[in-house]
């Protein structure tokens, strides 16, 4: 119905209509909901590009020797795959889309603390993305260093490292500004009555994440800047010929990039924590444990970076310290898993698509976490470092973890964001090739790694061949599942039936407003009277 008619009837126009519908009204909008959608569209596009590169990489490994590309191209492929997936999808991840859209709503606010800064964050994101894409096509070709840009190779290689690294530098600003915005928003804009311990757990996770974004990202900023300075001016800090120490590059790089994985996973865990109580129709088990464990993970996760460097030449003392701390950081994560599972106990469980994918998250993330522990053991790490085991591990946590949480969140919040319901049966159908393909692809990688297959190798020996074929076929199932899942959403945007305000029976604030929400979220700012996950056991679907 037109905005005018809705207004006449006393209904407020939704944010999709109010403020205009043209392109300009979107890319100049400071409405947190629109900004969330802007991020969503960009990020899913980049995800598809990155996934395509992944499929191509797997095609190359379908046969021994060259299949569809030469070694230099393969090196560029895994570099660009990593850069796109990490910097353009997983790190912005849930905060950029669901944090932007739902943080203000979940705390009863009308927007974030600094809406214009929010838009600037998106501009930085787009600029960084454009620069990254440009680096593929200009100069001496796309970087071939791996997304980790290790010195001294990153200093010496002729490929377009400086531009790619500068792109990542610009993207860092997007992350930092989002972190500042969210932390301030949570401190200052909670609705009356919402003390810290009445705040839902997704905002708690965004708060912890915000601090990591603020305190860790500048380190990668300076590191990337130094790579550029090294390449242009030869300062010497990472050049052994000038007395520099390449290991210091690794330290600086991982001081950010390890906490970065917590930027990736903490909001994902937070979103899962919103979804599970809704479909178990029970309050979350151990609210304070989940809240504080987010903070603990952020804190502990900032002092374990050395576990990426066990075989690089660090001293034994450092190895032992980082290994010990790595084991410790698993504890708060495990606490979350125990709490989610305990929430299910004696719940009235309904397996709608969001719940199915959330439960899958728990399973896949657990495998990822456990394999991480294995890598944290020094003696084991000697054999597993730089093998496919690592690749399998991080895909389980980043894709099985954050990726599936992203899908679950989209399945959960899509009706609220767009006012349309997708085809739930198709969403469940998509799960099968997704789940089977995912495990065919990545569990096989774990096996390959234990067998000794090195990562970032363009070719493989005969003893690894069967496993590689299985993995590649798995990638085809996975890609199929992705296309069905995402295609379903696109169809729903145009042809989905109208969604109600509360299709799932949720009890948090976003379900009290219309689908899609009005421009300023709440006609009247709510007053909060009790804890966030209050389910009345007598009343459920």
């Amino acid at each position, binding site marked *: 119905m037109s905005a005018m008619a809705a207004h006449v009837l006393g209904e407020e126009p939704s944010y999709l209509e109010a403020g205009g519908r043209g392109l300009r009204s979107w890319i100049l909008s400071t409405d947190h909901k629109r900004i969330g959608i802007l991020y969503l569209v960009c990020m899913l596009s980049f995800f598809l590009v990155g996934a395509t590169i992944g499929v191509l990489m797997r095609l190359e490994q379908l046969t021994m020797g060259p299949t569809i590309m030469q070694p230099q191209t393969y090196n560029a492929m895994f570099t660009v795959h990593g850069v796109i997936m990490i910097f353009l999808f997983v790190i912005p991840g849930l905060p950029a889309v669901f944090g932007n859209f739902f943080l203000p709503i979940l705390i009863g606010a009308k927007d974030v603390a600094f809406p214009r800064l929010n838009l600037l964050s998106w501009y930085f994101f787009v600029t960084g993305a454009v620069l990254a894409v440009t680096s593929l096509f200009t100069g001496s070709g796309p970087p071939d260093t791996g997304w980790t840009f290790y010195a001294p190779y990153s200093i010496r290689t002729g490929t377009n490292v400086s531009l790619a690294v500068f792109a990542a530098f610009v993207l860092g600003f997007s992350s930092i500004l989002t972190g500042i915005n969210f932390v301030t928003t949570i401190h200052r804009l909670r609705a009356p009555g919402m003390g810290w311990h009445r705040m839902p757990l997704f905002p708690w996770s965004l708060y912890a994440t915000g601090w990591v974004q603020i305190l860790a990202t500048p380190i990668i900023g*300076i590191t990337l800047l130094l790579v550029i300075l090294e390449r242009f001016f030869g300062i010497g800090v990472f050049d052994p010929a000038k007395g520099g120490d390449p290991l210091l590059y690794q330290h600086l790089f991982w001081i950010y990039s390890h906490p970065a994985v917590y930027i990736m996973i903490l909001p994902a865990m937070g979103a899962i924590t919103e979804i599970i109580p809704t479909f178990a129709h029970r309050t979350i088990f151990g609210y304070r444990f989940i809240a504080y464990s987010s903070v603990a993970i952020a804190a502990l996760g900032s002092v374990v970076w050395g576990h990426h460097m066990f075989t690089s030449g660090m001293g034994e003392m450092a190895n032992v310290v980082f290994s010990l701390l790595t084991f410790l950081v698993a504890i708060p994560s495990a606490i979350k898993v125990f709490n989610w599972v305990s929430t299910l106990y004696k719940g009235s469980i309904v397996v709608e698509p969001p719940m199915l994918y959330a439960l899958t998250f728990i399973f896949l993330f657990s495998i990822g976490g456990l394999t991480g522990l294995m890598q944290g053991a020094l003696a084991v790490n000697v054999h597993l470092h730089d093998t496919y085991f690592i690749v399998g591990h991080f895909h389980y946590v980043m894709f099985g973890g954050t990726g599936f949480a992203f899908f679950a969140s989209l399945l959960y919040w899509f009706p609220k964001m767009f006012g349309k319901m997708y085809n739930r049966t198709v969403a469940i159908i998509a799960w099968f090739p997704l789940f089977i393909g995912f495990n065919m692809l990545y569990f096989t990688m774990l096996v390959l790694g234990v067998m000794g297959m090195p990562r970032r190798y363009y070719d493989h020996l005969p003893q690894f061949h069967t496993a590689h074929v299985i993995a590649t076929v798995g990638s085809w199932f996975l890609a199929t599942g992705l296309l069905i899942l995402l295609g379903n959403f696109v169809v729903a945007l145009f042809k989905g039936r109208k969604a109600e305000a509360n299709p799932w029976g949720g009890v948090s604030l976003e379900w009290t407003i219309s689908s899609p929400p009005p421009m300023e979220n709440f006609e009247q700012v709510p007053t909060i009277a009790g804890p966030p996950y209050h389910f009345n056991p007598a009343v459920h679907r």
Partner: protein
Amino acid sequence: MSNAIPQPHTLPSAAHHDYAGSKIAMWLFLFTEIILFGGLFLLYSAYRAKYPHEFHDGGNELNYVIGVINTLVLLTSSLSMAGSITALQKGSRRLAMLLVGVTVALGAVFLVNKYFEWMVKFHHGLYPNGPELLKRPPGQVLFFGLYFTMTGLHGLHVIAGMVLLSIMLVLLARNRIRQDDYGKLENAGLYWHLVDVIWIFLLPLFYLAA
């Protein structure tokens, strides 16, 4: 007991002022600057531990008199900056503007000193990949590499601070910053003070390393 601020039930769509929130956000931004430079301090500390004698020798070659003078310049600029806020709070807009102007001017003095310092070094071939520097032992190469990187990055921030404060001057002139609405000036001041604090650390690390 909740510490959330109560919000009026009909909020205008335009951004409303949250003085405390803006201050928190500014401090959070300053943390990113602290960590940014922190990465360089981290490198410095590692290399100082590795090449103590070369760092000592390198320090001897820097002109500590200019270093100390520049320190006094920045410290004084911090005084004028803080003073400008006190002035505005007490209602003296003219004095506030004057003091902000003094701050910017002192920043310029700092940069001029820095320029001459660097020129002298360049003239002697002491710059990254410069002829004289390449003859020196590795520890000294790193010392000067870090010297130019850290003072250079700091200098960029001095320039940024001067631009920021010039904008504040304009806003003061147009009465957009006033006795009852001075948060912007305070936040700009915070940035300037941080630039001063970074220099406070750079002085002993490079000029007094001997």
